[in-house]
């Protein structure tokens, strides 16, 4: 990983995106020996409102708490792009679900993956969308070893869902790898 990395996961409340941010940051701290922080932004309506979490990862202690030059953005809703599609680096990797996000600035390195359809089809339960998305992010960016993120994911996963979460992550990871081909 580069010395400093910024990621933004944007969606609408209820899609599990805040937890995905926590998992990425915990993977950095606990399994990659790095510093990390995350800051969520949400509206007063917890479900259905535009939501984002910004994750900053650095080899040194992080002082400023907000992102200023984002390396990777995941976006799962058009209005989340409209509201949070700023502060991106010119070569930012943007991962979108093409069924949910239609209009993005194509000057960024935009990748499309139908995350919701994929989750529905392979996992049967929408609750695994964020694990699939996290896998896709790691596959696409290779920011960390996938094992580091899986460990952090399993630590957070509710008891009894470990196997399914790992499966969801791998599904996303492999799909992310495919996008690079």
């Amino acid at each position: 990983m580069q010395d400093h990395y910024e990621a933004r996961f944007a969606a609408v409340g209820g899609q599990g995106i805040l937890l995905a941010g926590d998992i990425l940051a915990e993977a950095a701290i606990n399994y990659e020996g790095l510093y990390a922080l995350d800051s969520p932004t949400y509206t007063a309506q917890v479900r259905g409102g535009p939501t984002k979490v910004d994750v900053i990862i650095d080899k040194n202690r992080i002082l400023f708490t907000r992102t200023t030059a984002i390396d990777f953005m995941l976006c799962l809703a058009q209005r989340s792009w409209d509201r949070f599609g700023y502060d991106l680096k010119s070569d930012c990797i943007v991962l979108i679900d093409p069924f949910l996000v239609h209009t993005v600035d194509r000057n960024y390195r935009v990748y499309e993956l139908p995350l919701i359809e994929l989750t529905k089809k392979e996992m049967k339960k929408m609750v695994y969308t964020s694990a699939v998305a996290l896998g896709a992010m790691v596959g696409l960016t290779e920011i960390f070893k996938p094992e580091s993120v899986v460990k952090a994911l399993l630590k957070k996963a509710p008891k009894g869902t470990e196997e399914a979460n790992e499966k969801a992550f791998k599904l996303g990871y492999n799909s992310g790898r495919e996008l690079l081909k």
Partner: protein
Amino acid sequence: MSNSQHLGRQIEFMPGNEVVAEAALAAGCRFFAGYPITPSSEIAHHISKRLPEVGGKFIQMEDEIAAMGAIIGASLCGLKVMTATSGPGFSLKQENIGFACMVEAPCVIVNVMRGGPSTGLPTQLGQSDIQQTRWGTHGDRPVIALAPAYLDEVYTETVRAFNLAERFRMPVFVLIDEVIGHLSERLEIPDPSELEIIDRVGPNVPPEEYIPYDSSQSDVPPMAAYFSGYRFHMTGLNHDRTGFPTTTQSICHSENVRSMRKVEDHIAEIEKFENYLTDDAEIGIITFGSSARAAIVAIDDARQRGVKVGMLRPLTLWPFPEQAAFELSKHCKTIIVPEANLGQLIYEVQRVTKGNSEVVGVNKVGGVPIYPGEVFDKIVECSGKK
């Protein structure tokens, strides 16, 4: 939190609000009453799960006023207590905060600040209650308010808030803001053996000889707990050493002055601040909390451009580190005060620097924190090095 067993120093990753709750438990907090309000709600949420595990009690009250009343009651019964709120709830608590000052009930009030006035910006940042903390409730009373900027500090300063409350028998405020409350970052939790824990001084006389405001030995009278065999009266009215109301001017005056002395005579014990590259600074920055985390990045950038700039960061906003700010002003032609409000701490900086420096603000409201670039631009502007 992933692990509630504190064995040695632990690396943790959790939001600022949960850090407050965990630190409170480590300090000995065994009673919390609150009313949910963003961006402080996670404190209540987390401590509601954790308090019963350590034999404590959590009550969700009908509103913020009642929550403040409940913690005063529990404090008078001998417990270490806390409530947490944000701007609108803090406004509601003010009357009972005055009561806690008057009866000298130790308690910790956490304010996770958001935008205002009124209900303002529920889930977004503001540093809007700096002067309300100092002057929000009527009458003259001492104020201690701590403003940590990093989650390690949120832990240690919350513990310190309990210690100061117990030590001086008074409400102590922890002022964080939405950015710090919701931020999760890597932090080190100290081993319990590393923590200094202070408990209130109890009476050393039998119940029949107990005088609740006996200040003959110390400006901080020994405090008995209700239901421990000691009978005493508490009132929001001015009272004498027996705890019963009085209007005798000389007693009202001397008791009020005594309460002020609890802080004024112990500044060195209470005051805490950090100097960053201030020794040779020609431009000073005085800021706190999340705004200080933007300022420190700006300072490093400006130093690379050859600008001699440094920061005084008060961890105690009240009492404000007057002497440190005055020293800084002696060699700074300009002092910049970044804050996520339209100018509150700047009044105190102007007051204590006594005209030595030009004092200018970097101010922003609307829920978005001050960015390093905004502080940097002001530094460059003030240095004349464009």
